[in-house]
């Protein structure tokens, strides 16, 4: 069961990610990203991170991506135009990312030799209670700092998005 | 040209004093006063009536086609003073064009467009003189007396 679910949603994530990169229209890209996020949230569930999986759905795909779609629709951004290429990135980009990928995979397989096999339900430390407990004890300071960050971000967004008074 | 009775009316006396050449004639029928105005002075007359005699409303602008006569069109203005509760009708005979009253009463806009559309009278100085009732590509002016009631044979497909 684990294998089936992992393979299926892993493939969905990869296809979605590729589609995000190659689709020309921002709306298509945004929806591809949503599918990646939904697939990832299922993978989170498999890894026993229940709360994070739900947060992924609520925060990422339910709020952030809705905002993206909203902005794309509001601007009625059309399909991307072919334009002059950025030279260096164009020629070195693909090889370099390939190298990065290979290197990362190598490091992972080498260094994580003692890795567990993932079994759904084996790890249950990711429920809302555990996450909440960790957040409000060990990580209280970072949590508060993040809330201030959000506050600042809201203020910044409001200032930026306000229409110029002319 | 104006009868004594009409000249006793303050409004008309004032108008004649201010614009002596404007008023060509006047008549009272069914308690309604009609003044015939020199077409060239229509805007000045309307402005005087609005700003000095408190005729704050232009009720309607329309036209009457006296076909065989020349000039054939009578442009008719109905004014009302809300405060004084008086109505006044102005009439100007024109052949093809007259100055637009929209400078004085902006409400004349659609009425003049309608007259232009249905009679073909051109209002010079009108901000947006387009057809209002008939389609934009309509030929002819339906309310003219020489336009038959059943219309000319007309269809969108066959027009040249």
């Amino acid at each position, binding site marked *: 069961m684990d294998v089936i679910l992992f393979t299926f949603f892993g493939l969905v994530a990869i296809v979605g990610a590729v589609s995000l990169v190659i689709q020309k229209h921002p709306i298509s890209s945004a929806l591809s990203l949503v599918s990646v996020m939904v697939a990832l949230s299922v993978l989170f569930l498999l890894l026993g991170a229940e709360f994070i999986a739900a947060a992924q759905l609520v925060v990422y795909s339910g709020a952030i991506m809705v905002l993206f779609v909203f902005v794309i629709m509001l601007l009625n951004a059309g399909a991307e135009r072919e334009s002059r290429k950025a030279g260096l990135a164009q020629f070195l980009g693909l090889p370099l990312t390939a190298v990065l990928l290979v290197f990362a995979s190598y490091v992972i397989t080498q260094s994580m030799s003692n890795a567990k096999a993932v079994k759904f339900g084996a790890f249950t430390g990711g429920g809302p209670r555990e996450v909440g407990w960790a957040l409000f004890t060990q990580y209280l300071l970072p949590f508060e700092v993040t809330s201030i960050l959000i506050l600042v971000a809201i203020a910044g967004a409001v200032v930026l998005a306000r229409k110029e008074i002319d | 040209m104006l009868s004594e009775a009409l000249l006793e009316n303050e409004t008309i006396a004032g108008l004649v004093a201010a614009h002596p050449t404007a008023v060509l004639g006047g008549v009272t*029928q069914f308690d309604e006063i009609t003044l015939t105005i020199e077409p060239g002075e229509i805007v000045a007359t309307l402005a005087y009536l609005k700003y000095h005699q408190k005729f704050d409303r232009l009720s309607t602008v329309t036209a009457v086609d006296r076909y065989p006569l020349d000039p054939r069109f009578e442009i008719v203005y*109905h004014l009302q003073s809300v405060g004084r509760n008086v109505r006044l009708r102005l009439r100007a005979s024109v052949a093809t064009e007259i100055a637009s009253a929209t400078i004085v009463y902006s409400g004349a806009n659609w009425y003049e467009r309608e007259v232009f559309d249905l009679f073909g009278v051109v209002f010079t100085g009108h901000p947006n003189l387009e057809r209002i009732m008939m389609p934009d590509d309509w030929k002819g002016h339906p309310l003219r007396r020489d336009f038959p009631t059943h219309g000319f044979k007309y269809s969108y497909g066959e027009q040249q």
Partner: protein
Amino acid sequence: MSETIVEHQESEAGTTRRMTLNMGPQHPSTHGVLRVVLELDGEFIQKARPEIGYLHTGIEKQCEALNWQQIITLTDRVDYLANLSNNLCYSLAVEKLLGLEIPPKAQWMRVLLAELTRIGSHLVWLGTHALDMGAMTMFFLTFREREELMKLFEMISGQRLMTSYIRIGGLALDPPRGWEKLVRAFLADFPSKIDEYETLLNNNPIWLRRTKGIGVISVESMLDVGITGPVIRAAGIPLDARKMTPYSSYEKFDFAVPTSTDNDVYARYAVRVAEMRESLKIVQQAMDGMPEGPTRADAHRLVLPEREKMKTQMEALIYHFKIVTEGIAVPEGEVFQVVESPRGELGYYVVSDGTAKPLRVHMRTPSFGNLQGLPRLIENRQIADAIAVMGSLDFVLGDCDR
């Protein structure tokens, strides 16, 4: 709609984005076939351009081809929600040209019917206006009462909408037996129904938020553009032809002209509801003081004889034949008759050249003038406000386009 949906427009200040939205001619809240071309910036209307003429039926042209008495049926179709006001206005104009004296009973009946028409028209307005704002139950409530009125009109004239009941020289028929009972039943019933509407709307915070302070322009601007009727009365000007130039013995009735100074959509609503109550008062007075007598003027050359007389008297038959085939000759002259229709100042400018057909019949219709003010009322407002304002103007496109 097949072109790209957003048009970019470069304004002087920089790049602002506007969208052109075609509201109508088929749109749920343009009440018929009005088309308003809106230029939108987000939800805000930057520019509005009403386009009319989709219901242009050429009534004014047809009038020139028909006999004087045949035109009555056309006037019904001008403002189909206030047909009797149009009948009345035209009849009064022609009667003025003819110098006809109308018997008192006919005059009182005319007042009664005109006021019932006003109530009926306001009911349609209230229902559709509330429906536009999303309060759809109102629509069914007002149409329930309107149905009673429709039954009454049908009883009196045989028609629900195009009654053509008011004719040159009086009324088409004597009112049938038993109609008083119907009117009295309506009179007894209706005040509580108005209370019902008010309980549903007056205390509704959403309704108040949607209507208060919306659609305000200066009184001078309204006069200038040609807005009349309840809209301008809600701006504080008691412009009402029934009081200013009484016709059909309105001067003998005791009624008030409701006004308000708030000048917003809510004020227009309040004024119209108050008008319904005033109209009820007039109807009550007309019912109580209805004079006895004929309902048609005694002018055998101009008014069709009674059916019974026509069948028994040779002379009456001849006049009937002559009136029907040749029409009536109306003396030369011109007249501008104004009545207060439910929507505002309704004026018929009738010119006769002495023949059996009019030279010109021009209708100064309230909807035309009111609609002309629409851009000023809705520009720099939101779409939702435009809906509220359009509802508050209460235009009828038949009335506007003729």
